C-alpha cells in the first residue's frame, strides 16, 4: 500500500440520476432549487443538532458580508473558531459550541437567516417522491447542494427527523442510523451511487488509454462493502 484516501461527495449527477431511476421506484431526481426540511414548515430548525458543516460555512460567510467580526463575537461567546474558517468543513463546531454561539445576537440572527432563507433553497437538484406517491405532500426531500467553492462537487442534504418524514423509508434510500454522535442516512443510495460513479470513472480512464486503468473486477464482500479492483494495462 502506498496511499489511501476516504470520504464521500457527489460529482457525477448523471450516475446519481441513473441510480435513483434504477433503485428507487417511488422517487425521482429533478432539477430544482428548493428541497423540503423541518425549516420549510417551521421557519427554523429545531436546534437539536449542530448545523451541517456546509451551512456553518455559509452562516459565517453571510456574517462576513454583514461586516460582523466573527472571530471577536465567537470569542465573546467562549468559542474559538479556527483561523482558517474552511477547516470547519472537516471539523465543524459541536452542538455545545453552537449553543454558546447562539447566545450572541449576531450569531442568532445569522443562524435564523441560514435556517429561513438558505437551507432548503440552495439545491441544484432534488430527490423527492414522485407525484403519484402518497407521501408526496409531507415527506422531506434530499437536496443535491453545490459545494460553496468547489465547482462540480455536491453534498446530499436531508433532514432525517422521523426518517425524513418517510422519505428515508423509500426503497433504495436507506434509513437514518445514529451511532454515538454520528448520524448516517441514505446508505443504500450513497453506496450504489459511489459504486456507479466509480465504474463510470474507471471506464472513462480505460477509454482514454490511461495505463493504470486496464480493467477492473467488482466484488461484494461478506460484510456488505463493495470492492472494485483496478488493474493496469
Amino acid at each position, binding site marked *: 500500500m502506498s496511499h489511501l*484516501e476516504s470520504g464521500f461527495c457527489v460529482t457525477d449527477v448523471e450516475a446519481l440520476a441513473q441510480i435513483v431511476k434504477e433503485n428507487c421506484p417511488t422517487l425521482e431526481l429533478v432539477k430544482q432549487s428548493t428541497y423540503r426540511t423541518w425549516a420549510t414548515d417551521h421557519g427554523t430548525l429545531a436546534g437539536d443538532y449542530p448545523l451541517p458543516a456546509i451551512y456553518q460555512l455559509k452562516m459565517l460567510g453571510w456574517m462576513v458580508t454583514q461586516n460582523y467580526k466573527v472571530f471577536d463575537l465567537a470569542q465573546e461567546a467562549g468559542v474559538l473558531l479556527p483561523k482558517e474558517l474552511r477547516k470547519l468543513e472537516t471539523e465543524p463546531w459541536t452542538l455545545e459550541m453552537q449553543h454558546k454561539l447562539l447566545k450572541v445576537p449576531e450569531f442568532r440572527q445569522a443562524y435564523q437567516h441560514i435556517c429561513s432563507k438558505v437551507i432548503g433553497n440552495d439545491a441544484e437538484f432534488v430527490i423527492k417522491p414522485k407525484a403519484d406517491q402518497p407521501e408526496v405532500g409531507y415527506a422531506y426531500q434530499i437536496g443535491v447542494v453545490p459545494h460553496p467553492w468547489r465547482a462540480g462537487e455536491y453534498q446530499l442534504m436531508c433532514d432525517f427527523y422521523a426518517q425524513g418524514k418517510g422519505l428515508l423509508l423509500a426503497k433504495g434510500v436507506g434509513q437514518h442510523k445514529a451511532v454515538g454522535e454520528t448520524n448516517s442516512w441514505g446508505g443504500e443510495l450513497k453506496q450504489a451511487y459511489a459504486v456507479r460513479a466509480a465504474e463510470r470513472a474507471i471506464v472513462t480512464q480505460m477509454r482514454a488509454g490511461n495505463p493504470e486503468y486496464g480493467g477492473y473486477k467488482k466484488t461484494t464482500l461478506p460484510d456488505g462493502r463493495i*470492492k472494485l479492483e*483496478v488493474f493496469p494495462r
Partner: protein
Amino acid sequence: MSQKKIVVTVDLSGEVQVEAIGHRGGTCVKATAPLTKTLVGGTPTSSVKKPEFFQGDIAPRIQQSE
C-alpha cells in the same frame, strides 16, 4: 513489490476508500487522482501516505541531502 493496482471500497454508508497498492513515490497520487476527485472530492475525511509513498523518486533525494 506487490502487483500494482488501485482498490476502491465502498461501505454500507457510502463512505469511499481509494487505495493505491504497489506504487512507489508520488505515482500513486497521479494513478488514483481520477477516482479520488470523483468519489472523495476536495476534502477527504482521511488521507494516509504509506511508507512506499516515500520510496522511489523521493528517497534518493533525501539521501543526497544528507
